[in-house]
C-alpha cells in the first residue's frame, strides 16, 4: 500500500465508494467495450440505488462511461456532457442476488457495430472496485494494475503461448485468472501485470492464431 492511498487520492467528492468507485466502474465498462457507446443502461443495486443522487453515483458512472477519471471535475456535469456526445443513457434500479451492497450492472450498446457489453461491478471501499461479471462470465478485475483481457480458444497449451509471449517481452505477470464457460469453447484470461505492455506486445498476442481478442486495460 502506498501513502497516496492514505493521503489521497485526489478525487471528486463526496464519497470514495459511492463517487470515485462509481466513476472507476463506468471507466472500466468503457475500456472493456472499446467502441463508441450509443446507449448505456445503468442499473444500480443496494446502497448505490438508495443514495445514488445524493452521492452523485449516477453522474459518476455516466462520467466514467464518458472517460472521466475520479478526479475529473467534469463528473459533476456528466449528464449534460453525455447528451452533447449523443450517448443515450438511463439510470434504473435493480435487485441483484448475492452481490456487494454497492453494485452496478452496466449495459452498453453500439448499434452500427452490433456490439453489446454487460458488466457487473462493485465498489468495495476506499474507491477500489471489483468487476465480477462480463457478458455472463464470472471474473475478478480490480483495475489496480495494468491488465490484459484475452479471449482465446480453450485448448491445451494456449495459456502457455500467451505467457511465453509476455515473457519474451520481459513483462512480468503479477496475477492471472483463467475462465471458460464450456470445455473447448472460448477461454477468457485476465492477466494483471507489473509493467505496462507496449503496442508490440498487444500486436504479438493479437497475431497468435487462436487468440480472438486482446484488450488492454490500464491501471485506473
Amino acid at each position, binding site marked *: 500500500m502506498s501513502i497516496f492511498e492514505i493521503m489521497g487520492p485526489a478525487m471528486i*467528492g*463526496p464519497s470514495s465508494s459511492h*463517487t470515485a468507485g462509481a466513476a472507476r466502474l463506468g471507466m472500466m465498462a468503457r475500456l472493456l467495450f472499446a467502441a463508441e457507446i450509443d446507449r448505456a443502461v445503468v442499473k444500480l443495486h443496494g446502497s448505490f440505488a438508495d443514495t445514488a443522487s*445524493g452521492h452523485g453515483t449516477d453522474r459518476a458512472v455516466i462520467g466514467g462511461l464518458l472517460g472521466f477519471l475520479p478526479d475529473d471535475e467534469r463528473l459533476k456535469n456528466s449528464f449534460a456532457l453525455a447528451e452533447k456526445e449523443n450517448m443515450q443513457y438511463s439510470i434504473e434500479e435493480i435487485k441483484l442476488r448475492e452481490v456487494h451492497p454497492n453494485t452496478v450492472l452496466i449495459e452498453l450498446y453500439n448499434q452500427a457495430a452490433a456490439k453489446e457489453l454487460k458488466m457487473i461491478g462493485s465498489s468495495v*471501499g476506499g474507491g477500489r472496485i471489483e468487476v465480477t461479471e462480463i457478458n455472463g462470465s464470472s471474473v475478478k478485475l480490480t483495475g489496480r494494475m495494468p491488465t490484459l483481457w484475452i479471449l482465446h480458444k480453450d485448448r491445451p497449451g494456449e495459456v502457455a503461448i500467451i505467457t511465453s509471449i509476455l515473457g519474451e517481452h520481459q513483462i512480468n505477470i503479477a496475477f492471472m485468472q483463467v475462465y471458460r464457460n464450456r470445455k473447448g469453447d472460448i477461454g477468457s484470461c485476465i492477466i494483471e501485470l507489473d509493467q505496462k505492455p507496449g503496442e508490440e506486445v498487444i500486436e504479438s498476442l493479437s497475431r497468435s492464431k487462436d487468440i480472438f481478442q486482446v484488450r488492454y486495460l490500464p491501471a485506473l
Partner: protein
Amino acid sequence: MEYKSTAELSSLAEEENTSISEIVLKVEMEESELSRSEIESRMAANLQVMRDAVERGINNKIESGGGLVGEEALKMQSFLNSNPLEKDNIYNTVISYALAVSEVNAGMGKIVAGPTAGASGIVPAVVLALAEKLELGDEQIIKSLYTAAGLGYVVSRKATLAGAAGGCQAECGVASAMAAGAAVELRGGTPEMVVNAFALALKNMLGLVCDPVAGLVEVPCVKRNAAAASHALSASTMALAGIKSVIPADEIIIAMTEIGDQLPSCLKETSKGGLAITPTALKLKEEIFGKK
C-alpha cells in the same frame, strides 16, 4: 525498512536521528521505486488540490447533493472578516478551512481523501492554518503530509478506515489523529511527541458513530470535520507541552478496532440509527429523496 506500528515509526526516526516524515518518505521510495522528487511532486499536487478546495469553500456558496450544507465556511469567513480579534485565533481558521473542504466535498468538488473523502477537511485545515500562522513553506507542509499519511498507514495495517466497518472514529477520528501528528511535526516537536499527539487525538474520538442524515456526507459530517480538526490542534499542543497518552498509540488503534466491531451496524454508515433516524432527519430524507 518498514514500520508496522507507531512505536516502530518513532523509534526508527529516533535511531536515524531524523523526523517521522523522513522515515515515511524513505519507505515510500523503497516500496514504490519512485525517486524523492517524484514523490514530492505527487504530494505537492495533492497540496494544491487541498488549497484550491479551501479557497473555493471559504469564498463560495456550495451546492451540495442534499442541500443540507453549503454556506457554513462562507458564514465563518464573513464572521472572521468582521471581527479582527476572532480572525487572529488559529482555531477559527482551522474551523473555517475544515468546513470549506468538507463542503466542497459534499458539492461534488475536488478534494484529497485523507484518509477518506468524508474526513477530507481535517488534515488540510490543520496543516494549512498552521503553516500560514507559522509562515512555513510548501516543503514543510509536504513533509507534514507524509507524517499524516504514515500514521494513517499504520492504522490501515491494523484496523479499518471505513465508516461502514469502524464507524466515524475510523474516519474523522483517524483523520484527527493524523492531523495532530502532522501538526506536531510542523511545530517542531519530536517523533515521540508526534506519536503522543496522534494517541491523544484518537483516544478522545473513540466510539464515534457514523450516522449520516439521509445517507449523505453532509450532516453531521461537515461540522464534525471542523470539530475533529480543532481537536487535532488541541492534542498537538498537549503533546508539545510534554503531555503523554497513558495508553500507547498502538493499543488505542486495537481498542478502536474492537469498539468498531462491537458497534451495531445501524451506527456504521447505514443511516439506520442515531442522528439519521431522528424525526428531523427522517423528514429531511423524505424531502430530499421522496418517499423511497
